[in-house]
């Protein structure tokens, strides 16, 4: 019984941290599907979002919900500006130029955050910090539950947005065929910037949800590397795939931390990633594709 409870606890913890990886991976996938760019600074955008939320909630004493939503909006605006001012310039350059550009931007964000907020870990009070919920005799941390519930809610909202709203459908069109979308009167460049905004907003949400579990600090962006594993497992182009991939990575990581000696937990996501590339490089949810010349 002890063992079963312990395992269930690990699964819930893993699913919670997996949801965070999934949310970061979701940011990669949204941008990749639309613009074929991969944002290596996604983890650092999450870090910036977390710090903005910290400033609003802890320094300006805004209520958690107001501060959180405001932080998401600010980070989204930042994502929009990032695309409109920087990334749009490298359209047409080879893919690896974008990789290096975003990697360089990540280093700059980290330094900027260090200058602005300092290099210490910070945190703010949330309604979920240090509370537990008792569900059918199972004691679970509300912080972990809030991550899982927040992720599920976000997925619902995104699904409705992409399938029901005019902008969402335009985004789908632009990511399927830029030229055709442009001919149909869709302002493709603005749409791409909006996708960057959504992706940054999702990253900020991930930062806010993560804050009760782990502190916000400058090097938080390295979680982005783990999120790559999630995205690759999901097939790098599938939105539900990236979330499922994230949960898989999170749970595997928890069990690795439980069973393996200290220090190996950190690399399990990388091992999972490489194994996935060896066994099934197209991911679990690959679309069948052929090349059109």
């Amino acid at each position, binding site marked *: 019984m002890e063992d079963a409870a312990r395992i269930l606890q690990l699964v819930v913890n893993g699913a919670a941290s997996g949801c965070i990886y999934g949310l970061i991976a979701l940011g990669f996938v949204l941008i990749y599907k639309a613009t074929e760019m991969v944002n290596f600074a996604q983890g650092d955008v999450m870090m910036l979002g977390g710090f903005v939320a910290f400033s609003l909630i802890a320094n300006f004493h805004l209520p958690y919900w107001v501060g959180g939503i405001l932080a998401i909006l600010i980070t989204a605006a930042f994502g929009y500006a990032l695309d409109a001012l920087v990334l749009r310039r490298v359209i047409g*350059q080879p893919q*690896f130029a974008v990789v290096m*550009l975003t990697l*360089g931007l990540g280093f700059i964000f980290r330094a900027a955050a260090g200058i602005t907020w300092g290099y210490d870990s910070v945190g703010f009070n949330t309604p979920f910090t240090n509370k537990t919920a008792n569900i059918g005799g199972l004691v679970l941390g509300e912080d972990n539950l809030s991550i899982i519930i927040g992720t599920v809610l976000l997925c619902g909202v995104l699904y409705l947005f992409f399938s029901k709203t005019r902008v969402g459908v335009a985004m789908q069109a632009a990511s399927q065929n830029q030229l055709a979308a442009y001919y149909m009167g869709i302002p493709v460049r603005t749409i791409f910037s909006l996708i960057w905004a959504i992706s940054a907003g999702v990253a900020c949400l991930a930062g806010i949800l993560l804050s009760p579990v782990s502190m916000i600090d*400058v090097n938080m962006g390295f979680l982005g590397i783990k999120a790559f594993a999630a995205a690759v497992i999901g097939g790098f182009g599938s939105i539900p795939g990236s979330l499922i991939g994230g949960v898989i990575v999170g749970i595997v990581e928890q069990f690795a931390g439980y069973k393996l000696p200290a220090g190996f937990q950190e690399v399990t996501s990388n091992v999972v990633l*490489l194994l996935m590339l060896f066994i099934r490089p197209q991911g679990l949810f690959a679309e069948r594709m*052929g090349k059109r010349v």
Partner: protein
Amino acid sequence: MRYLFRTQYQQDIALWRHNGDRFWYGLLAVLVLVAPALLGEFYIGELGAVFIFAIAGVGLMLLVGYTGLISLGHAAFLGIGAYVNAVLLAQGVPFLVTLPLAGLFTALCGAAIGRPTLRMSGLYLAIATLAFGSIVGTIFQKWTAVTGGFDGFAVPTPYVFGIAIEGATGIYYVSLVVLAFVLWVSANLLRSPTGRAMVAIRDSEVSAQSMGIHLARYKTMAFAISAGMTGLAGALFAHYVRYLAPDAFDVLLSVQFVTIVFVGGLGSLRGAILGAMFVRLLPQFIAVVRDDLPFGIGRLPGLEPSLFGLVLVFVILFQPGGLNGMWLKTKHWFQTFPFKRQTSFRRQKTYAKSERLR
């Protein structure tokens, strides 16, 4: 302005384009050979480090600049080369055997990691090498029986024909020889069908494939050669630092290597060397001006990585040709004086190229 009239195919693939090349590179060779007699110990040590980075830079240039793939894990290959060399030397294997072995073993590692990932788009290689680098770093830390873990690993002094390679001058000459060898191999590779195939893959995978180039095979070959050269650099790096610590081979070092390639200028061997000079000299420059910077910028903990990031961003956005491109532009300005026009080097309008499979 010099106009080359090529009348034979041999001229087209010649290593030296004309006698001017021969003269200037010959002069450079003489200068580098006598440099230890003219410069102090410190500068020779730094130059040796520049050579070692240039070897890795040339290797990465073949991959990024000529094949169009990117690796974010070359620090791991440098580390593998360093540890293989040091461990074998400690077993009593002579240096002239361990050095090529370090290169070969690293090339094999590169092929092993490249083969599965290169079936996918180049993006997967970047991600896979990032993961590979972090795994290898952990192995260096945890496999204490071989690497010594965080206690470090003292690298034995190498002997070539009974002569001990010691001090800055010894490393300098060995690195110089290896760098010359690597440059010669790369230049020859690039004028061979293999090199042409690599460039074709860089420019368009689809058209390369339709010309009968086996994509996965040539990409894996390019990646293995690149890793092997970095392994050679790693073997020399072990002697340069003399004491191997596992945390030297982290992602930041990989990013520095890629910075070499981008800052130097994609698609030019000269660029790899210019980039290596830049990357080695920037930290020295920071160390010199650190105390004079306003607002305490000099004492920020993350100054160096963020400067590398900043340089990368600016080069990609505003000077895609890198240092080599700046050199070519300056040369063009003088050669055509006063006829340089605004549009001489203007980039063509570019459109989003889709690498996506549909």
